[in-house]
Structures are given as structure tokens and as C-alpha cells.
């Protein structure tokens, strides 16, 4: 995996849009061109002026719009740090360390003849948008399989539709097929060469089981609790076939063969 230079940048908020009650889409820019970033990499955001938050917050890269020189972050508002982010206004500054970690493997057109399936759940759909865009740019049309609790929790569907076929599931049946992503009918009548997934751990484990049983290559993006984001503090470790490794530096994207998910 190539290693991109990391930066600490004061980015300027261009907009903060409420996507749904619990999610915001933050678009950031800066005067100089944004540095190169890969799909699946993440940003560590400094939270300013909050007495209860001390550490940076890791947020996945949702999208990079080269023409607009914009970085998009799709944020679930869950605590004091993300609440601070959601309250930012256009023109405010956000201090970001980026790009961090290793991204998803970009399947080439030749090896993608059997198709690439991108499976997201909840706010975990975020990094799949930029991944889909990159695949589309090199002539691979991915299939997005996106799951959520309800219709309202399905995020940014119109954006995903720009880069591939979009299939959905909801737990309450309010949109798409009813159930979990792993219940979707596409899985029983189409073949894929590669599955890439991001979302809640139980969902990713179920996707990994499906892939393993059929011998399909599979990558999953983990989100263990982190401090430094650089592989220095050794807090975000995942137990793998090579022992404890830092999710921030060795991941967040792992081939499932490295993970101890055989249960």
C-alpha cells in the first residue's frame, strides 16, 4: 500500500447539512489544493472548546470533490465531539490531521469482471461513496448494498446512484428489502469477485462469513476506539493472525483473512 504524506490542516467549513436527525454532512475546503487521499482512509478531527473531549475524533473520508476542492465527512451525532462538529457554521475552522491509515484495495477493471459489492450499514456507508467514485473512474461499476434501521437512516442514496447500482435493506421494511443486508436476495443469485464492507461489527462479521463460505475476497473497515491515529499509542489494537495490530496504522481496512472472525 502506498504511503501518502500526512498533514495537519486548518480546513474551512463550507457547509454543514443535516442529512437526518442524527447525521450531518460536513463539507470542508482550504485555499491550497487538498492533499491526495485514498478511499477508506480517515481524518482525525480536533474538537475545540469542549471540556469533556480531549482527544481527536477519527472520522472516515466520505468523499473528495476535486473540482470543488472539498473534503466531505458524514458524521453520526453521538457524543460531545460529534455534537460540536454538527454545530459548526460555514466559515468556521476545523483542524484536521489527514490522510490516515490504509484504504480499500481498488479493484482493476480486468479483475472486476465478476463485480464488486460494497456493503454498508448505518453511518458506515460513508467511506463507500468515495470508494465507489474511484471504482467508477476506472471503469468498474460497483453494486452498493446499503442497510439501515429505517428509510430515514438510508443516507445519501442519490449520491451513491451516480457511481453504481444501489440496493437497500431496512430492518422495518420501510424501504428496499426487509431485513439485514445479509438477507438481501442479490446474495443468493449473483456472483461477486470482491466484497468491501463498513458498518456495525455484527453486520461486517455476517458479511465476512458469507464471503468466507463462498471463497470471495473480502475487506472490512474497523473503527476501534482510537487516540493518536498514527500507530504510536497502541490503544486501538485488533487481535489478528499476526497478534495485536493498530487499526489506525495497519487498517482501518483489513482483508478478513487477517482477522480472527471465524466464530
Amino acid at each position, binding site marked *: 500500500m502506498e504511503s501518502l*504524506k*500526512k*498533514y*495537519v490542516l486548518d480546513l474551512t467549513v463550507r457547509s454543514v447539512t443535516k442529512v437526518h436527525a442524527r447525521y450531518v454532512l460536513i463539507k470542508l475546503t482550504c485555499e491550497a489544493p487538498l492533499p491526495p487521499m485514498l478511499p477508506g482512509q480517515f481524518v482525525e478531527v*480536533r474538537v475545540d472548546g469542549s*471540556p*469533556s*473531549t*480531549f*482527544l*481527536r475524533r477519527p472520522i472516515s473520508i466520505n468523499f473528495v470533490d476535486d473540482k470543488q476542492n472539498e473534503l466531505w465527512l458524514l458524521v453520526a451525532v453521538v457524543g460531545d465531539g460529534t455534537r460540536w462538529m454538527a454545530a459548526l457554521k460555514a466559515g468556521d475552522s476545523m483542524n484536521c*490531521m489527514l490522510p490516515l491509515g490504509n484504504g480499500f484495495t481498488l479493484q482493476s477493471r480486468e479483475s472486476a469482471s465478476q463485480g464488486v459489492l460494497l456493503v454498508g450499514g448505518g453511518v458506515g456507508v460513508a467511506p463507500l461513496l468515495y470508494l465507489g467514485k474511484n471504482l467508477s473512474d476506472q471503469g468498474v461499476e460497483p453494486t452498493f448494498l446499503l442497510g439501515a434501521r429505517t428509510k430515514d437512516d438510508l443516507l445519501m442514496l442519490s449520491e451513491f446512484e451516480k457511481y453504481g447500482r444501489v440496493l437497500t435493506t431496512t430492518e422495518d421494511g420501510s424501504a428496499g428489502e426487509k431485513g439485514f443486508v445479509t438477507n438481501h436476495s442479490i446474495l443468493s443469485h449473483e456472483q461477486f469477485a470482491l466484497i468491501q464492507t463498513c458498518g456495525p461489527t455484527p453486520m461486517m462479521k455476517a458479511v465476512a462469513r458469507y464471503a468466507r463460505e463462498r471463497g470471495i475476497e473480502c475487506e472490512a473497515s474497523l473503527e*476501534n*476506539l*482510537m*487516540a*493518536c*491515529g*498514527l*500507530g*504510536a*499509542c*497502541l*490503544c*486501538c*489494537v*485488533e*487481535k489478528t493472525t499476526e*497478534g*495485536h495490530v493498530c487499526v489506525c*496504522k495497519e487498517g482501518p481496512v483489513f482483508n478478513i483473512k487477517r482477522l480472527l472472525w471465524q466464530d
Partner: protein
Amino acid sequence: MARLDVNIGALHLKNPVMTASGTFGYGLEFQDFVPLDQIGGIIVKGTTLKPREGNAYPRMAETPMGMLNCVGLQNKGVDYFCEHIYPQLKDIDTAWIVNVSGSSPDDYAACAARVDALEHVLAIELNISCPNVKDGGMAFGVTCAGAESVVRAVRERYKKTLIVKLSPNVTDIAEIARAVEAAGADAVSLINTLMGTAVDIERRRRVLSIGTGGLSGPCVKPVALRMVLQVAKAVKVPIIGLGGIMTAKDAIEFLMCGATAIEIGTANFIDPATTIKVRDGINDWLDAHGVKSVEEIIGVID
């Protein structure tokens, strides 16, 4: 431009800013943000004779103005360091220091002897204060006899500058400092983390995998400053101060309380360029106050 260089025993530092073990990896992780050769000294992560897996996840809990960790000395062992990491570091012009840990005096001494052979590692920092391992670590650092036994064993087999990192989890840190000085330490560094815990009320259990962890960050600074003052009165060897330093002002407080050098720890996680900013800030303060050398402010506070 004030003079910033200081001496820790025979160890010469180009400036008093060092990195705290376990917060700066092997330095290489921070190369995109900091010119490593401008840091006074880099103390690499805790190294043991044999590889260690460390404790289970979760290992971290955020706290008001700080964090708890229970990493538990995860590292690939001293042989791996010597063969794979050291070659990448040795030509970078800073004072490289290895933090050494173990589970018995012989263990510490064997690890230290291995590091003694590395030409560009000029000192070791002996970790007798890790609160996150069962065997050894803090167990040695909380009694005078335990601390002495480790320092004596290492002193016999390690000829370069020997720094001993002290635990704040004791009744009287000055007493431990005196014991390690008598056993042959060239310097002491303090404080390691304060033992604490964090609770998850929804799950009705403790957050960290082993229940407790070490507290670091700005919340511990007042405790660290008080202990540096105490130890400065108790020993003649140089003191390296650490505990919650985020800014040059924090660093100057430690220097005035009697520290000859300081270490930046948890702050590296918030701003990876803290070390250089602190160095520049110390210089600016000295210049603004007409002080010609950093040595003039060391220990000026009673």
C-alpha cells in the same frame, strides 16, 4: 536566540525537549509533522527482552483533560528493535534513548546490556513504574528495595547514561528517588502515569480490559509539578519532568521547579508537532525575558 542545550549526566541534549515513551512510537510515525533532528531527545516505546502482546482491547478511556491507558508494554522485543528499528533511527541526529522494562532484575539487565551495544543509543530510561503489567513494572518502583534491586542489576551491565522513570503511585516519591540515586542512577524522570479507572454506567462495568489504567494528560500536571519540586530537594542527579505538558509555558513551569529537561507525552496525540512548538516557545520566552540560557531558569522556584 537563547542557549537551549542541557546536560543529563554525560548525555548532551541540543534542547531540553524530549518525547515520553509510548507516546511517540519510534519517532518515524511523526516524521511528516516534525523534523526529528530538532528534538532534544527521543525516548522510544517500552522495550522488553522478549516480545510482549500487551493487554486486550479496550485499552483506552478518555477523561476530562486526559486519558487512561492500559496498553501493557506491547512491543516486539529488544532483538527486533536492534535488528529492524535501530538501523532506521541511528543516522537521525537526536539523542536516542530506549525505555527498558522487564519482569525481574536480570531481565532488565539483559535487555539493557543488549541496548548498551548500540552506538547511537546514548541512554536508557528504566521503566520501574508501568502500572499496567502484573509481573514487574510498577511492582519494582513502589518500594525502595525493589527499585534499588533493579537499578543495581542494570548499573552493572549498562555503562552509558541511566535514567530511572519513577512512579507517582507511592507514598513518598522522594524516598524512591534517593534510593535509585544511591543505586547508581544518573538521572530520574517523573512522573509516569497515575493509576485510575473509568466506568461505563450503561454496561455497569469498567471500561478498560484490565479494569485499571494509567492517567495522563493536562489533568495530572499539578501532581507532576509538586513531585518534581519534592524530588529536586531530595537528590543531586538531574531530573527530567513530565506529566501533562501541552505548551511551552507548561514546560517552563517544570524547568523552574527543578527539571533539567522535559518530556512531551499525551500532547503528541492532539498536536503531533507539539515538541517543536514547545522548543520554539521556550526559546521565545527566554529571549523576551532577556535570559541567555535555559540553564538559568532551572530550579529557580523553591
